[in-house]
């Protein structure tokens, strides 16, 4: 159920219309083409042997027997890989971090369970796995550290002693004003330490690669399931010591990425190396057991947050010192970097400082995941806002509204210099309060109801950075990519347009949105635009799909390219119709005179004329093809609020989310149904991380306890609460069409709203929650601690 309020009244437009998705026909008919569907003739299969310990020295590797097994073609170990490749590069380094180079295979010390140590290529995956078992690897287990806080303690074993003298990879303080002074003056200070659990982004399709090498042509074709084919191409060329022109990365359909498939992984490189050396295609598809250990994890962080307020409830200062886990080594996108940007949320706070501290631990490397630090910090801040309300005897809704930036105050530069572009933050919060009938719920009281359960309401409000600003900003941080998107439009002789983009298709509806914008700007039928995505041999060199940036940057490139293509089309048509280009329009499959629509010429005819160069004006170049690059001027801040209503069984800690309402603003909406799908999908992941998902490590052994689908509790559709979505549509002034990113929004509000609702329901017991996920057992423990007079309100 959505109520879309259109900011400005426009003529019926493709933008804003829920046209059927371009991607769906093939996916619903089973005609999607995923990496595992690619199987060139004479393919061989790779299996990877992995370190079973969190931290260990490799004493020896005995692989002769395995290499001699029938059907086995090659065994590689770290020593060979170090000699033949360069380390895998980091795409987005943490500012100020020591360089921690790593190779596709470990040769001396392994720093996480699941780290690749040997790779085998054989006639079948079965044989390759048999051979991996036959390789004898002697490990000397070393002292390990799993917890990021423990990793920073002086007694912790230093995991990269050759490069670092502690496990603190970097610390990045930011902010403005004098929060310490404000804290000292404040009437109330609330503070706590909040723990956010480690989760897996868990795309349905695990990672996959098929590598083909044609030695005569000196061409490596790597089919990779990735969000960033052009970046993977760069990384492969660097690590394999090839020229980029010798590497073509082809990405077909991708069964989900969520940030996990951002850049080159060791297995991608290994498959390519084997393929080059064996001169045979090599395939590897990750299985789920590997996925849980070798694909990046996310979120794990501890936020020490403080809010100071005066007697009227005005926020005077906020501080957040947080530790994020890196895992054992870098991944291309490393640990989440956006907590610092949005830590003050939608609130008016002048004095605020934040410090990110990145800890190295003996766990699977952390990578990007939908939200990239924003759900984590939102949880910490929003729980404290509710505690502040309880301390002051204020209503949490009112307290938020009082401190929220108003529409007139925007644009606003927050404490770390991020510019909130535009929006009506309070409106979303009021909308959710109204929709859940907050007044009615409060009047009914918290219970217990006749069914014995206590009822609570929890709010949360957030801003979300979507997209990012210029390449200049990135240069200071050592990022290996730009801020633009690039698109090529090429007219074809059937009268259609082929749109080429390096943004691969992994469920974000980019093909649909690009085609909608192209058709809208150009005038051609939506059905006549075909999107070709993800083949670096055919698409312009772009940045890639992450950071909710695709539409923000991509829509600008599509707009410019479509406008240029349209202009040339009109010039050619004008000459033929003996009219001025200004008098013409493109309507579906024809170019026609606006005033006299019967004076028309088929688009196909114009395309043929341009492509053959026959029958075009003398001063016009042949061809009808445009490539445009677009870099947005700034990031756009999406925002929203949510409310959860829960019923809690105070005997058991079990609770039910009876309602969940979210109102969000993603600026101008290109395709409402696609947006709703994005928000619901992200909410499902948000509920997972809020309620049940958590990767747990055994303390003594440092081993992952729940690395299978049996024990990792990712919600199914039947586990999700009823979701009610509301939208506002305030266009962003800094982006093409006023769009804001939308892919990640839903991950942010579940944790904070549910925790606040549970604490509200159990307010009479003094229950406080400080960690995610919020399991029934944790609620029960919080109840028990509260009744023991243990952990109550902070201070």
């Amino acid at each position, binding site marked *: 159920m959505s109520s879309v309020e259109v900011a400005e009244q426009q003529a019926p437009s493709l933008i804003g219309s829920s046209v059927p998705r371009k991607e769906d026909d093939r996916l619903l008919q089973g005609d999607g083409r995923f990496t595992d569907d690619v199987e060139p003739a004479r393919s061989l299969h790779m299996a990877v042997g992995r370190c079973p310990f969190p931290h260990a020295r490799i004493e020896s590797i005995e692989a002769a027997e395995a290499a001699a097994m029938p059907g086995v073609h090659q065994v590689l170990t770290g020593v060979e890989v170090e000699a033949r490749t360069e380390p895998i590069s980091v795409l987005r380094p943490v500012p100020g971090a020591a360089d921690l180079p790593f190779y596709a295979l470990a040769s001396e010390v392994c720093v996480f369970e699941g780290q690749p140590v040997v790779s085998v290529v054989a006639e079948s995956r079965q044989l390759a796995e048999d051979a991996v078992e036959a390789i004898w690897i002697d490990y000397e287990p070393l002292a390990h550290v799993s917890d990021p806080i423990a990793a920073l303690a002086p007694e912790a074993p230093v995991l990269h002693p050759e490069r670092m003298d502690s496990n603190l990879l970097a610390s990045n303080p930011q902010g403005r004003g004098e929060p310490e002074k404000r804290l000292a003056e404040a009437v109330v200070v609330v503070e706590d330490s909040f723990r956010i659990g480690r989760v897996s982004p868990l795309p349905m399709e695990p990672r996959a690669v098929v590598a083909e090498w044609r030695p005569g042509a000196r061409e490596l074709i790597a089919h990779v399931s990735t969000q960033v084919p052009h970046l993977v191409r760069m990384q492969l060329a660097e690590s394999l010591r090839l020229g980029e022109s010798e590497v073509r990365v082809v990405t077909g359909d991708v069964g989900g990425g969520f940030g996990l498939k951002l850049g080159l992984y060791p297995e991608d490189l290994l498959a390519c190396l084997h393929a080059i050396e064996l001169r045979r295609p090599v395939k590897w598809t990750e299985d789920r057991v590997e996925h849980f250990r070798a694909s990046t994890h996310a979120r794990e962080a501890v936020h020490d947050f403080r809010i100071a307020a005066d007697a009227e409830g005005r926020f005077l200062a906020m501080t957040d010192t947080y530790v994020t886990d890196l895992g054992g080594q870098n991944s291309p996108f490393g640990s989440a970097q956006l907590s610092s940007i949005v830590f003050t949320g939608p609130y008016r706070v002048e004095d605020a400082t934040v410090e990110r501290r990145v800890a190295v631990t003996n766990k699977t490397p952390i990578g990007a995941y939908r939200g990239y630090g924003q759900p984590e910090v939102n949880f910490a801040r929003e729980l404290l806002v509710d505690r502040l309300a309880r301390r002051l005897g204020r209503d949490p809704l009112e307290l938020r509204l009082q401190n929220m930036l108003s529409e007139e105050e925007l644009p606003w530069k927050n404490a770390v210099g991020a510019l909130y572009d535009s929006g009506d933050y309070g409106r979303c919060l009021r909308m959710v309060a109204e929709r859940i009938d907050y007044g009615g719920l409060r009047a009914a009281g918290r219970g217990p109801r006749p069914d014995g359960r206590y009822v609570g309401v929890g709010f949360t409000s957030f801003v979300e950075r979507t997209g990012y600003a210029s390449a200049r900003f990135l240069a200071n941080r050592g990022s290996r990519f730009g801020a633009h998107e690039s698109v090529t439009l090429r007219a074809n002789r059937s009268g259609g347009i082929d749109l080429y983009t390096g943004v691969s298709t992994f469920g974000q509806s980019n093909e649909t949105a690009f085609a909608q914008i192209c058709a809208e700007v150009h005038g051609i039928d939506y059905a006549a635009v075909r999107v070709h995505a993800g083949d670096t041999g055919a698409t312009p060199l772009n940045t890639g799909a992450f950071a909710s940036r695709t539409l923000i940057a991509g829509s600008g490139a599509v707009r410019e390219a479509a406008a240029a293509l349209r202009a040339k089309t009109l010039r050619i048509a004008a000459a033929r119709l003996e009219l001025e280009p200004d008098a013409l329009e493109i309507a579906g499959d024809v170019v026609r005179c606006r005033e006299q629509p019967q004076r028309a010429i088929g688009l196909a005819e114009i395309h043929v004329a341009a492509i053959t160069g026959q029958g075009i004006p003398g001063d016009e170049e042949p061809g009808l093809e445009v490539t445009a690059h677009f870099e947005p001027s700034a990031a756009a801040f999406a925002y929203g609020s949510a409310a959860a209503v829960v019923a809690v069984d105070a005997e058991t800690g079990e609770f039910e989310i009876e309602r969940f309402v979210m109102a969000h603003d993603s600026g101008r909406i290109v395709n409402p149904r696609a947006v709703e799908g994005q928000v619901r999908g992200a909410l499902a992941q948000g509920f997972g991380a809020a309620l049940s998902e958590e990767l747990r490590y055994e303390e003594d052994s440092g081993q992952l306890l729940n690395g299978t689908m049996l024990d990792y509790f990712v919600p199914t559709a*039947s586990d999700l609460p009823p979701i009610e979505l509301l939208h506002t549509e305030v266009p962003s002034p800094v982006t093409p069409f006023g769009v804001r990113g939308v892919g990640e929004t839903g991950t942010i509000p579940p944790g904070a709203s549910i925790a606040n609702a549970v604490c509200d329901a159990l307010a009479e017991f003094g229950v406080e929650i400080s960690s995610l996920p919020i399991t029934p057992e944790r609620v029960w423990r919080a109840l028990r601690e509260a009744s023991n007079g243990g952990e109550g309100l902070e201070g």
Partner: protein
Amino acid sequence: MKPAPFEYVRPSSVAEAVATLEAHGGMARVLAGGQSLVPMLGMRLMRPSAVVDINGLDAELGQIEARGAETTIGALVRYSEAEASPVIAERLPLLRTAIRYIGDRQVRNRGTLCGAVAQSDPTGEVALVALTLGATVVAQGPGGVRELAADGFFVGSYANALAPEEMITGLRFGVVPARGAFFERGRKHNDFALLSLAVAATPEPDGSWRDVRVGMGGINDTPVLARAAAARLEGQRWDEAALAEAAQLALEDADPPEDVRASAEYRAHLLPIHLRRLLLSLVEEPRHG
């Protein structure tokens, strides 16, 4: 996640299946629905020398038979078939209710009840109901047919009294109490149970209850009977005090594990609360879960 090499055998009779198991000296495994065996093979947690696929033995093993007071479920009867069977609905409604908590539709379309009994998962719903209702496991081995009471069959986590050369041919239930109810908590929809409970009893006209059975899953390394709790309730009227005491007594037979689903402490906390509520539901209305 590819299995280690094994020999694949598809026998055409139970006798041939048993002969194959014997020929492999106990190193072969029966393949029924494959919902547990295949993942274990894939993860190489199990490395049988042969897999004996009994899926061709539908004529011998595919039936649900109601004979007199007894109901026998053959080794190839899938969860979905039992769920849809009028015989099960009429005679073993508690079993039917419990099956709905198992896996998802796809799993239930393949998985078999006897496979679940053989798997002997400490949280298994079928094992719990079989134990609670006093079922009999019918097995066939080189030495012929053996009948094993469910009570005593489950000897440990994923361990049972079956000999390695034996296979289960059916699961037999006798007359069951008039009322039954089932409860389960997992960490998500159709998850394995962190706590499951099956209760059954017959109300007498005088308001007392006889034939009281209380079974518990997820609370020990096998499904277990809460004997002390059942004894407290046998022949009694179930007033609030009786229910509360019985619920507490159930802890005597519990030795809850600690794992990613829940701590031992939390399981022990939940057990009496949910048992009392479940028993109460039996009193309040004649229901079957």
